[in-house]
């Protein structure tokens, strides 16, 4: 496979065979090696063959092998000639990250971090057997799927201002609850308000470094040691079921004979199945927004119970990193509408876009990039160049580079926990196995991922935060 270096942070795989566009990879020579080891690049090439794809099939700096589409994959499609693919969104529809700031410093909560983690895990159900808050009715689930975080706020979970500071303002339009299968509904009902397991987590963090003072101040980040809370989760079984349902329906309708990879199944955006998938996906997007909204509310409550106040806990932003969106982009002076798939990629809109809240409109949207368990996370700001370079997208996390299987051979959960504790990080979790699987060493270096984003111009560094307490679902 031919790899052409464009600059220190961009490589290209030129068009060949059935590729309609070339593949563009934002990476460094060091991380490129990890990407070459698995099927990331082959998968990005397969995406480049899909109908109506525009400009390039992109791989973000944290790119790694997925199924069908690579993780860290971005692909924009023409609305008339293009396609929409459940595999280009992922099974965890609107998996995303929410960041809350406080006016506390690390000193203010010193000695109470463990109590906070205990309280939060009591209020936020994490795993199987713990269920959601209550078994909501189907009618309530319908409201959740149609109105997202707005439903949550109206029902006492959080504040109106939170909605302003959420992608899509917490409610993606176009959702149609009647299209959801009985199974999706059944799986959604017991899981509303749950964190889930795997790579999902909730962290109490402190600011370690501020790179861009003025931008940080607009986000509400003003000094080192300032305490933050980060929530990483998605649409749970409801989203997984919708993805599986539409993969099956599209297979049955379109057949799988001509696909290079069965997970790449797709439908024309304008077809009946394409439209239905989008409307069902939007319902799962809203479910996930409501989910994170409820969890944020319980985190505030936990701070009130343990520390006495929530410490001015305002939302900085809430981003989706598994989603397809209908967006306007300026391509060589012409504004056109596209269906942008971001699978393990974060929107990174620069200043001036109406899609981002007024408070941030002059500087660009906050981009939240969680590291792996126990490592730093970053807050970036979206850029105008990103719109030109990557349809307004950047990385979404560290990106795995070691299998869970290998991680279990190499790491022991007990040792990972001890290491974290020796660095002053408290950990609450459900199983040693999960701790070992998510050990910091199994991920790419998040510092390198965000450095590439910054240098490539697709998301600029604003602040670095480090964990003081982790709840692993």
């Amino acid at each position, binding site marked *: 496979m031919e790899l052409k270096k464009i600059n220190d942070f961009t490589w290209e795989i030129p068009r060949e065979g059935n590729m309609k566009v070339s593949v563009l990879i934002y990476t460094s020579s060091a991380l490129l090696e990890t990407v070459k080891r698995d099927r990331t690049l082959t998968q990005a090439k397969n995406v480049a063959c899909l109908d109506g794809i525009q400009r390039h099939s992109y791989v973000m700096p944290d790119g790694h092998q997925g*199924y069908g589409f690579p993780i860290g994959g971005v692909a924009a499609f023409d609305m008339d000639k293009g396609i929409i693919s459940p595999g280009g969104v992922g099974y965890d529809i609107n998996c995303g990250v929410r960041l809350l700031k406080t006016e506390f410093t690390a000193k203010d909560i010193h000695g109470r971090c463990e109590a906070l983690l205990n309280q939060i895990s009591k209020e936020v159900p994490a795993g199987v*057997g713990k269920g959601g808050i209550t078994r909501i009715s189907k009618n309530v689930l319908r409201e959740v799927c149609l109105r997202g975080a707005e439903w949550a706020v109206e029902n006492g979970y959080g504040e109106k201002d939170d909605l302003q500071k959420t992608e899509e303002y917490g409610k993606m339009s176009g959702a149609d609850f009647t299209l959801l299968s009985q199974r999706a509904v059944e799986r959604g009902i017991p899981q509303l308000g749950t964190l889930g397991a795997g790579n999902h987590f909730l962290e109490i963090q402190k600011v370690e470094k501020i790179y861009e003072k003025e931008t940080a101040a607009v986000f509400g980040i003003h000094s080192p040691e300032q305490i933050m809370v980060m929530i990483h989760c998605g649409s749970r079984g409801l989203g997984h079921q919708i993805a599986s349902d539409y993969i099956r329906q599209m*297979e049955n309708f379109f057949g799988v004979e001509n696909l290079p990879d069965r997970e790449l199944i797709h439908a024309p955006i304008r077809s009946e199945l394409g439209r239905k998938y989008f409307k069902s996906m939007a319902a799962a997007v809203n479910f996930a927004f409501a989910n994170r909204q409820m969890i944020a509310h319980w985190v505030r409550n936990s701070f009130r119970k343990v520390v006495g106040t929530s410490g001015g806990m305002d939302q900085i932003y809430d981003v989706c990193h598994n989603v397809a969106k209908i967006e306007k982009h300026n391509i060589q002076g012409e504004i056109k509408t596209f269906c942008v798939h971001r699978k393990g990629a974060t929107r990174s809109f620069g200043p001036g876009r109406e899609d981002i809240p007024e408070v941030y409109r002059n500087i660009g949207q906050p981009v939240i990039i969680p590291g792996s368990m126990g490592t730093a996370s970053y807050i970036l700001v979206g850029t105008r160049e990103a719109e030109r370079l990557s349809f307004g997208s950047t990385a979404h996390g560290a990106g795995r580079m070691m299998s869970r299987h290998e991680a279990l051979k190499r790491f022991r959960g007990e040792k990972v926990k001890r290491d974290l504790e020796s660095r002053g990080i408290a950990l609450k979790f459900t199983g040693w196995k999960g701790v070992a699987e998510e050990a910091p060493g199994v991920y790419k270096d998040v510092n390198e991922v965000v450095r590439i984003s910054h240098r490539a111009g697709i998301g600029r560094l604003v602040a670095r935060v480090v964990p003081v307490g982790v709840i692993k679902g």
Partner: protein
Amino acid sequence: MSEQKFVFLDHTADAKFRAFGKTLEEAFENSAQALVSLMWDAARLKKVENIAIHINGNDLKQLLLNFLEEILYLLNTREFLLAEAISTRILHDDSGFRLSTVFRGDRFKKDYKVFGEVKAVTYDEMKIEEEDGWMVQVVVDL
């Protein structure tokens, strides 16, 4: 042929396994064992509940995917933890493939540990091969 019921292979982000059987049915049953081994210890479950399952698929791969997805569905909606799938039968006719099986296991209780979560079963690198017995290969999204 391997005496093993299943084996895990390396995969960067997710879990990939191969399950084996003298018959296709046995390979399917063992793939269920592999799947649940990512979430709980099947040997520790009481087999107090039997659920009769009927699955359809246009082709064998879709049948396998739907079969394994059923385990995730029952976990989410009934907190049912599968210990084993038994008496599995796979039939092929003009309309495609049909599978019947019995899921045995128990509902989640406090003394059971669920240590992992599988989001979905995928077609990625899925293989169903017959060569001196059957082998199925599956990647699941974690």
